[in-house]
């Protein structure tokens, strides 16, 4: 026997639907309150004076609670980074795309494996080495060996003038 849709079935379905929307409207604020708040977002950019950085030196600045490496690379490092073949890379990116000004490499000093801070001038590729789980990065901050899946991230930055970089 075919079941006939009754007025009561409609009322039940409508009640469940409205109830589900209501529950969702209550749950979402509970979830979203955990996302970065306005005060955290307000600290989204920082300006750095780079006049004192000599070639071959790195400074580390804190941006959004994370370290940013600003390295003034030597000519050998630039040559090494630019001569790598794309097929040798796990995450192929040209050095030209990573360092707008070849002398300055600005990148998040955060290993893309599990977020440790890699050590400068270490590892098999003269770049960075993460002590936590052994990822090796080259002089362009690209992953060459180890568990990290991608190259170290390049944040949004620009040269405000010859001596100042604005990150974020």
């Amino acid at each position, binding site marked *: 026997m075919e079941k006939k849709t009754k007025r009561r079935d409609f009322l039940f379905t409508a009640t469940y639907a409205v109830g589900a929307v209501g529950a969702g409207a209550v749950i979402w604020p509970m979830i979203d309150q955990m996302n970065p*708040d306005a005060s955290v977002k307000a600290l989204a950019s920082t300006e750095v004076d780079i006049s004192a950085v000599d070639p071959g030196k790195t400074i580390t600045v804190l941006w959004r609670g*994370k370290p940013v490496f600003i390295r003034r690379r030597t000519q050998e490092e630039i040559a090494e980074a630019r001569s790598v073949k794309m097929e040798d890379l796990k995450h192929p990116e040209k050095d030209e795309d990573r360092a707008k000004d070849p002398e300055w490499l600005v990148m998040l000093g955060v290993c893309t494996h599990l*977020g440790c801070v890699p050590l400068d001038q270490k590892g098999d590729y003269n770049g960075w080495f993460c002590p936590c789980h052994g990822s090796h990065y080259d002089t362009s901050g690209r992953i060459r060996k180890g*568990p990290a899946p991608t190259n170290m991230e390049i944040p949004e930055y620009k040269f405000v003038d010859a001596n100042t970089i604005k990150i974020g």
Partner: protein
Amino acid sequence: MSEHEYTPKSKVGKWFNDRLPLLTLANHLTDYPTPKNLNYWWTFGGILTFCLITQIVTGLVLAMHYIAHADMAFQSVEHIMRDVNYGWLIRYIHANGASMFFLAVYIHIFRSLFYGSYKSPREIIWIIGIIIYLLMMAAAFLGYVLPWGQMSFWGATVITNLFSAIPLVGEGIVTWLWGGYSVDNPTLTRFFTLHYLIPFLILGLVVLHIWALHVPGNNNPIGIDIKKPSKDTVPFHPYIVIKDGFALLMFMIVFAFFVFYTPNILGHADNYIEANPLVTPAHIVPEWYLLPFYAILRSVPDKLLGVIAMLSAILILAALPWLDTSKIRSAVFRPLYKQFYWILVADVLILGYVGAMPAEGLYLLIARIATAYYFLHFLVVLPVLGFKERTTPVPLSITEPILGGSPNLAAVKKKDSFKVQ
């Protein structure tokens, strides 16, 4: 619940019990028929209850003095250690209590594995136990972050970054967990809240764990179904209460040894350095009780697969009642399983050892072999063994092998002649 109907003797008792049957419950717990051959490996349920209560009580006290703020957390822990009356004692009990809790839970879990306590009809008890174990790991991790030392900070960074392995939404989940773009004050305050919450969830699950246990009753060293109550059982009180109490005293000696003589041996010196987001400690290792899983994570060269392997290593336990195809519960009557059991114990210990070592060279190779074997044990050895193994005869009751009349008469005779000599 009890087979017989319980009526309180006093009039007031009867009046109360008719309205809320708490006395019936108390009577059930007192008279609860327990197999009389339970050995000391069965005392860890009581010991674990003690551990949970110790953690809750010391934790409540610590929360009265601790300040969950990135600028003050480290100092407030030092304040507890140096200024608060007996603060050092309470914190050392809480910190070492976590290790003691895991020590006891590992013995409890491996007891189940040896005697087949996870098998029908006790699957739900087992699965609730696995959920409790997962919550314990979460509570331990969250609690370890609160002192806001270097290991706290970088442990939190590494573990929360595990979620970034999830495709597409991973990064968003990590930012959501942090409440920012790195581990910082919002992370600390929510971790404190959750660390406070989880023990009470565990307490609720422990009630369900014991409730589910009291439906079929305890398993026992020979792993047979027994009639309850019968000659094979003794009442929980006083027999098991006294035995549990004695074992608890022995356990407390070990506990006190750590607290009073070597309170920092299970921790890391790096955690007495305040958190610094610019410097990662040279060698990050989790607490000892998480090392086997950490070794599995690191043995897989791919980020996502490493995380999946680590989670599977824990979740595979929940499927154990169906992966183990043998009808015989106790390893006492399973000559082959008994050997594989000890290989698994050794395998987990090896994983724990290499988890503490740097992930390179020979250590990495050993970690990979041990990881492969871990999964092999559950996915291949156990299912196949149930069909291939020739088990030895199982007695019909606990008393039979001693009093005679066992189907395994030869074994009984052998035992008797041995006694005469």
